[in-house]
């Protein structure tokens, strides 16, 4: 029997394969978008109860986040750390690990970058930047990889461990920048010594946004390739889908868990480095700006898909960029945007439970019968 005949005899064949793949992709896009919309509608109702116009609110968000060239610059600059922070959630999530403590890796990555600048100020610019990046990635990788190791070796719940470690990381950063690493010249805001001018990371020409955005986008694409197109990513997906099946196949589930958590942590550490080298110029308490937590929302909205993280991060960056304007124009507290993000997050979590309930694929099943 030829292969075509076999295919025809057993299934809808290649056409079925393609149409089913397409249908599943459509479902994977429609559900999160519907959830986003539902969250935004729920927030509109909330605003209406407060006596504010939801329409004004969303128009303002559009204007402040995406309306002008200036607002785009602002949004994209905020998106840079969010892209990397979201990867710290998305990569472990593909192995079934829920890591919510990326904030800790961001903060300590920034401190590591600041420390490198203090320890080796003599390095020329490019070498200094590379040294900072390596130190930040290593620090973040150790921090979150440690969570993966605790999970694998001692069975410690990775969600709780990573969250508590984030608090410890913030305390550790405060301890270091107020003590050992403090620049005596930083009076009001304890910080590490300012980076040498040559170590500062500049802007992407013509965009007005620092290079962290490009690195974040490249990291997202590379993560997608790693997960979807390499055998390591395939092994990780098997572990995430069913760890017993992975063990029966002899796959090193524990090592994969440690490796992918460490990689996620390294990306978050890099986000901290860019905050120091491109935004603040030194490491200080401004590092704990909540990017790690917004990254959780973005990763879930993107369904832990590296490519989808890019638009999701830009959207959330736009929400946050609009916070100031919303506060001034509508006389709403700046926590308002957090309420919106929270509602969207809950809608996304709900939409996960609806997967496969809407029978986008029902026509395929009927064809089978």
């Amino acid at each position, binding site marked *: *029997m030829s*292969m075509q005949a*076999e*295919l025809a*005899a*057993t*299934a*809808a*064949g*290649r056409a*079925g*394969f393609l*149409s*089913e*793949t397409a249908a*599943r992709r459509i479902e994977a896009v429609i559900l999160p978008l519907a959830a986003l919309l539902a969250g935004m509608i729920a927030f509109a109702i909330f605003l209406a109860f407060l006596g504010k116009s939801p329409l004004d609110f969303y128009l303002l968000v559009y204007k402040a986040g995406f309306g002008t060239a200036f607002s785009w610059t602002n949004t994209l600059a905020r998106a840079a750390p969010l892209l990397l922070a979201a990867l710290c959630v998305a990569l472990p999530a593909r192995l079934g690990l829920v890591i919510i403590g990326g904030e800790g890796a961001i903060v300590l990555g920034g401190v590591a970058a600041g420390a490198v600048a203090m320890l080796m100020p003599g390095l020329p610019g490019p070498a200094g930047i590379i040294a900072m990046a390596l130190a930040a990635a290593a620090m973040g990788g150790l921090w979150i990889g440690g969570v993966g190791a605790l999970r694998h070796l001692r069975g410690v719940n990775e969600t709780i461990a990573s969250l508590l470690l984030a608090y410890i990381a913030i305390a550790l950063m405060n301890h270091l920048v107020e003590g050992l690493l403090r620049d005596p010249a930083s009076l009001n805001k304890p910080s590490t010594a300012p980076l040498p001018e040559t170590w500062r990371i500049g802007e992407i020409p013509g965009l007005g946004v620092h290079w962290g955005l490009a690195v974040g986008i490249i990291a997202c694409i590379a993560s997608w390739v790693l997960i*979807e*197109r*390499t*055998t*390591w*990513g*395939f*092994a990780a*997906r*098997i572990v*995430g*889908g*069913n760890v*017993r*099946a*992975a*063990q*029966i*196949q*002899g*796959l*090193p589930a524990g090592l994969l868990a440690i490796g992918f958590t460490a990689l996620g942590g390294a990306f978050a550490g890099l986000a901290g480095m860019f905050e120091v080298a491109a935004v603040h110029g030194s490491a200080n308490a401004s590092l704990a700006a909540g990017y790690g937590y917004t990254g959780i929302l973005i990763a879930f909205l993107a369904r832990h898909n590296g490519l989808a993280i890019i638009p999701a991060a830009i959207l959330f960056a736009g929400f946050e960029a609009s916070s100031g304007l919303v506060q001034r124009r509508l006389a709403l507290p700046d926590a308002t945007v957090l309420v919106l993000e929270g509602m969207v997050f809950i809608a996304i979590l709900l939409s996960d439970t609806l997967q496969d309930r809407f029978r986008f694929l029902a026509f*395929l*099943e009927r*064809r*089978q019968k």
Partner: protein
Amino acid sequence: MRVPPLDLKPPSHAIEVATLGMTMRFGSFTALNDVSIRIAAGSFHVLLGENGAGKSTFVKCMMGFYRPTAGQMMVEGREVEVPDPRAAHDLGLGMVYQHFTLVPSLTAAENLVISRNDVPARIQWDRERADLAAFMKKMPFTVPLDVPVGRLAAGEKQKLELLKQLYLGRRFLILDEPTSVLTPAEADELLGMVRGLTTSGELTCLMISHKFREVTAFADEVSVLRRGEHVGGGKVSELSTADMAAMMIGEKELVRPAARVAVNGQTVLAVSGAKPPDRSGLKMIDIADLRVKAGEIVGIAGISGNGQMELMEILSGQRPLEQGTVQVCGTPFKATRGEARKFNVRYLPEEPLRNACSPKMSVAENIFFRDFDFADGKPKFWLDSRRMAEQAARLVGEYKVKTASLATPIAALSGGNVQRAVLAREFNGKVDLLLIANPCFGLDFSAVAEIRARIMAARNAGAAVLLISEDLDEILELSDRILVMSEGSIVFETPAASADIGEIGKHMAGHH
């Protein structure tokens, strides 16, 4: 027609319960066929049968968990309706499960009081305590009432489960393998108490058991189910254990084993002195010596929970060995991916969707699990989705896996087709050692026949096969050599050609 309960108050003495023509069908599958059993008031009746004989279906019908397709329940000679468990409770029917249903952090007294249906919102503990003390005085045995249940020994907990049923006024008790988590001494004590309650006319008891020892020592009567049918029974005093074993297993006409070619092979798998702790950590698994040769199917028979799953976990590297060795082709084997590839070791764990597949990944991806990272003798870094699609298309055709398309999540397939897909993956290429557990559980006849034929074909092609199965028919049909596992050890060995079913059954039930 709904018949009201006999009384508003539960009965105060043992009651007679009977079923008439109880039948339960699930789709086209008949789990219970026309079963009529009468359990006399004050008797200790045992329900015997192999795994899957319909014992739990039967008691679930009695307790109202299932609504039988046909048949009636009689209590004290009157026809009753049992639409749900609460109705059964109102009639004085209760059940004690294999596993505990008590709240571990609460004391025995608290557990007893909250199990009632009529607990007030505010519990007056002084009064409850006095009531409990009075109740305990009437009981032939006691348990410490003020210690959190979590601190009680297993035997004490099971006694408390029994007390709870009596406290709730139940006069007909179903015990579902109540001694499976107890030591023999605890089991004897518990069953002695049940015996006492039945002789004194306070309780009627129906116990599900596999253990002939318990039947002969404590019970009055037995009924035997086989494949959903009531095939016999009688007074324990008039039956020998051999009679009971024969009824359980039946006059099996040995299924004509599939055509097998003689292969005189080398030893492939050798396990010796392996002693890991079992799941509960209480008992030890002890596999003294187990060898499987190329071209041989070694069947391991046994009632579930006697160490078979632990053995499978040792062999698949999911359970560390504290002592002993596992060798494949004379080399120590830790079930890594590299070793499995080198020695062509393949696994078919039970419940393939739960243990061998990633349910949300596609059929094609699931079929690719074994080969995705290695091709042409070299490890691969890039995932070759063309190779994946081609391999899946070929194997889906060859193994007749019915699926809407290769991109369908494997969880959407029927059980038989999931097992075909796993089989396609594991049987692809050269197979030298095949480790199988309950491969046909829950599958329909055509899938069963096909899967067994594939296993036999692998053996005939020279694979060494270890087949762990709770289905004795399957073991008898496929095996060259039969081992029986009981309480963590291999207790009996016989060549399949001269196998005596009665003998096997007795060893399975713990009579060595």
